[in-house]
């Protein structure tokens, strides 16, 4: 359940930004989560309320932006979609892929007041 640790990180990031950018409450948090990242969205949503309790994001909502996984094949050089880390190239079937996108785990936007 490392999602708990990640959310505790989110909470401290929010607290830091509240001080530097002068806001009292967070209404919405947009998270960019790659399809190949180690984050389980259901676990994140499940733990969110518990971690944000009594914080400035107690009533905040979560918005997820899913970033699709994509790799570049070492063999044929083409871009190929990936849904798992062990996917093979859809063009040539080779499994040596360099991940181009899909590992993201970022806060990209806050709606605050």
């Amino acid at each position, binding site marked *: *359940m*490392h999602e708990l*640790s*990640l959310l505790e*990180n*989110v909470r*401290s*990031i929010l607290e830091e*930004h509240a001080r530097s*950018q002068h*806001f009292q409450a967070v*209404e*919405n948090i*947009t*998270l*960019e989560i790659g399809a190949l990242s*180690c*984050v389980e*969205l259901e676990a994140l*949503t499940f733990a969110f309320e518990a971690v944000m309790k009594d914080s400035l994001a107690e009533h905040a*909502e*979560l*918005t*997820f*932006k*899913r*970033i*699709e996984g*994509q790799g570049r094949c*070492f063999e044929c050089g083409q871009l190929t979609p990936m849904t*798992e*880390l*062990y996917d*093979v190239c859809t063009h040539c079937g080779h*499994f*040596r892929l360099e991940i181009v*996108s899909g590992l993201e*785990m*970022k*806060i*990209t*936007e*806050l*709606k*605050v*007041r």
Partner: protein
Amino acid sequence: MCGICGCSDMSFSGKFIPVNKANALLFTSYDSNQGDESADKSRLIQMEVDLLDKNNSYAAKNRLYFQEHGVFVLNLVSSPGAGKTTLLVETIKILKDFFPIAVIEGDQQTQHDADRIRATGVRALQINTGRACHLDAQGIGVAVAKLGIENNSFLAIENVGNLVCPSAFDLGEAHKVVVLSVTEGDDKPLKYADMFYAADLMIINKIDLLPYVDFNMDRCITFARQVNPSIHIIELSATKGDNFDEWTNWLRVSMQKVIKSHAL
């Protein structure tokens, strides 16, 4: 307005929005209060902050400390019972006369593993993570200060037995080493792909038990390389000593490189 379908409702909370990197950019500049003057004073703040930012900055500090002091650090990860502690105990017995060794042990409870390491005569510190399922870089920084690690030494960090969570947390190590025992099944690299993707070295342990278990070595190696084409693999038995030299030689060569670059 929504950048995907043109709808005007932007309250997607808790829902999944499938977008690719290109059209994700369309999402970053909407203002939900546009045209609604009577709304409260909500505002939007754009940012790019990684969820692991805090851990990563502590890990960077640790890494710098290790570089400056010539400390070669491995982060050992596996499922519970794969043989990490036995591997370390046997490694220490062979290598402790060649360079200083220290160990940080991570477990949810008990001092048992640190006691086993201390019995070999090297320094060990136990971190009990309580309910947490992994070690983090901040905890390692504190442990390193407590432990007092010598220059030009080898530090082994034995993570909590868990093939999921420790994969995401950089501790400042030189390499993650994933230990997989042949009693666990040859498809573990696919089942727990994040960990095998994060590791630089895979040790396949308990090879002395191969005749008694249904474990296909070629299949396991193929799966591991499918997830991580550049992963280095060593097959050994920590208890019986089979092929143990390959591992200790790898460690000695790695240590020599670290000591050499520290001396420069």
